[in-house]
């Protein structure tokens, strides 16, 4: 009898041990976030890290309240390879769709790397009705397509900037350069992809309108590894400013080194990831001095004294992963996107895609990148005035500090500036 009781008790306890976690797991089903992106690029890799950081923070506080229940986030990933120059859009979309059908995510964050994939993938996301908060691809083509059928594409949102915003910041800086230093000849070089073409096109058009002389406007294939034709022409034409927009690390790195090597006496401005990266001096050498770059949006890699949230996010990122994010773009958007999603789920108390899309439309979130609200085209409102009212970006310049060490100094807009734009000595008359 006693032996029988012992055996029975043992089996009972064992059964509890086996069943208990199962029943608990069944009651706290995680909210699945899909991250289909180009993981083997700095933007995709660090975007995913930012998502995981946000998820860790949210889960540490008990997860997201869905109705009466708190549920943790779970991240599932797919490498679309969409950021690699030789990947066809179709291949990236196949990886995207596989993640959707296999992992059945409740929402997607980060999303497509290349705008070509984002735009082609809008139909895919609409078909499966999955709320998506994209944080990398920058082409204004997104809102054009969205406006063709807002009802169909209502699940799609863009949390980050687009090329129009980025170009506005750079155009305003060009105005300052013209007014303050009298620069008037410009040469534009861009990566021949949708967003970069749109971005540099906006800059070039602005220059034409404001009295600059455009000496060249050259598109290079994304896999290009020699920029001597454009740089030679720029040098021969005595241009004072080179505008460069490029996101593939290889070409951008070659350009950055070649620009310094060929001693083109022109100020460099634009978006050139290796030159904007926190590790640019180590990778490219002291030739980065005076180059100016946009960080879109704020908090992607540069802590700003006047926006403490950027420093908080980046120090948490550094503590978690041992280094700052590499690229001066979109990392803070990936982080913000998870909180925006959590916020919308809690407000609507449901994971129903239609309800969630409606809740996302009413987003009003004070994030790392500023205040995030969506307009009628489902893109986050960014501007140049006030981070309490809109998302913001920053322009910085590599300058030497008093100890002679090169640092990234925010120079525009004024409410974020920690220094003034410096003209290289070889450009001063």
């Amino acid at each position, binding site marked *: 009898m006693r032996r029988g009781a012992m055996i029975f008790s043992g089996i009972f306890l064992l059964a509890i041990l086996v069943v208990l976690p199962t029943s608990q797991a069944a009651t706290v089903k995680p909210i699945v976030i899909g991250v289909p992106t180009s993981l*083997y690029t*700095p933007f995709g890799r660090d975007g995913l890290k930012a998502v995981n950081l946000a998820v860790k923070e949210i889960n540490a506080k008990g997860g997201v309240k869905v109705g009466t229940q708190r549920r943790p986030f779970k991240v599932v990933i797919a490498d679309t390879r969409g950021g*690699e120059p030789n990947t066809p859009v179709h291949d990236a979309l196949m990886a995207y769709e596989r993640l959707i059908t296999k992992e059945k995510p409740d929402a997607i964050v980060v999303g497509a790397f290349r705008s070509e994939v984002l735009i082609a993938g809008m139909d895919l996301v609409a078909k499966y009705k999955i709320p998506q908060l994209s944080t990398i691809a920058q082409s204004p083509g997104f809102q054009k397509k969205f406006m063709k059928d807002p009802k169909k594409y209502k699940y799609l949102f863009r949390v980050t900037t687009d090329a129009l915003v980025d170009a506005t910041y750079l155009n305003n800086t060009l105005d300052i350069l013209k007014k303050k230093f009298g620069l008037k000849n410009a040469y534009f070089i861009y990566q021949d992809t949708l967003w970069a073409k749109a971005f540099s096109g906006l800059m070039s058009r602005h220059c034409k309108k404001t009295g600059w002389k455009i000496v060249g406007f050259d598109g290079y294939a994304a896999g290009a590894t020699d920029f001597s034709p454009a740089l*030679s022409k720029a040098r021969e034409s005595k241009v004072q400013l080179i505008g460069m927009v490029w996101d593939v690390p290889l070409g951008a790195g070659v350009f950055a080194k070649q620009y310094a*090597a060929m001693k083109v006496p022109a100020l460099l401005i634009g978006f050139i990831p290796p030159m904007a990266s926190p590790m*640019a001096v180590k*990778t490219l050498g002291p030739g980065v001095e005076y180059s100016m770059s946009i960080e879109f949006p704020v908090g992607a890699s540069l802590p700003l004294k006047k926006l403490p949230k950027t420093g908080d996010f980046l120090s948490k990122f550094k503590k978690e992963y041992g280094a700052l994010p590499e690229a001066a773009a979109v990392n803070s958007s990936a982080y913000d996107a998870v909180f925006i999603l959590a916020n919308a789920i809690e407000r609507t108390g449901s994971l129903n895609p239609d309800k969630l899309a409606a809740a996302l439309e009413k987003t009003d979130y004070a994030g790392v990148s500023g205040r995030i609200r969506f307009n009628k085209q489902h893109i986050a409102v960014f501007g140049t005035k006030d981070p309490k009212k809109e998302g913001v970006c920053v322009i910085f310049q590599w300058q030497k500090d008093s100890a002679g060490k090169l640092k990234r100094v925010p120079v525009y807009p004024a409410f974020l500036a920690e220094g003034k734009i410096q003209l290289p000595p070889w450009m001063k008359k």
Partner: protein
Amino acid sequence: MSLLIYGLINSVILALYTVGFSLTYGISGLANFAHGALYILSGFVAWSLMNAAGLPFAVSGILAVLITAAIGFAFYWVLILRVRGIPLAELIVTFAAGVAILELMTWKGFYGLRYSLPVFVNGGVEIAGVGIDYQRLIVLASGLVLVIGLWLFVHHTRIGLAFRAMAQNERTALSIGIESDWIGALSLAFGAALAAIAAMVVLPLGVMESTIGYDVLIYALAVAIVGGLESTLGMIAGSFLIGYGQIAAARYIGAKWMVIVPLAAIVFVLSVKPSGIFGKFKELEERV
């Protein structure tokens, strides 16, 4: 003037990409499609030796060349030996090995903005009003030294003479005691070493990414096909045609056409003279 100077530099870079590929094919008839992967692998090996082991670039570079040569040598015995003499199988095996190397490097995290080899000497000079950095002058000098060195090697050393014997007639070479597998393995090792030497002088011009491996393979193929797969003279001619063609296209037609030039050259040469400008493999068939 900049067209002349940068066309020359671009041509020499293409020749450096191709010289190892062409040497291996010329000696053993083996089209090593892992050539581009070995090129970039050597760059990452050098970077790792510098940053993980703290070695100076000069030492890391030499070690990277030796390690890459050893990998090429091992390739022959592990991968090629079983399919030797079946050209399509050799091509598939080397291509698969190359893709595996490139994907492995990506998977191990060798991508991003931090991977760059230092230039040999900082600074530059002006030549006829054209700014040029010392590293590019080193590239030019390396190309010249490599071509002269190779000529001396294959004409005045025992291994070099054995290489030539194999290239001219494998059966006759066998009959006089030259072991074809050893020579095949050495040709792969030398080809890999030449790819690594090219990497050590060219990679400091930019940053490193595993996808460079594909580009290098395409350029090497284009130059070799245009010039003639087994011909050193053809390799030089092919490099100059494509090198100057690219710079001229970028300057006078549009920068985006640069990448089209090598592909267009392949199509044109294959349709007009499949052996290439100086190639002899199919010369008889072409005449007939």
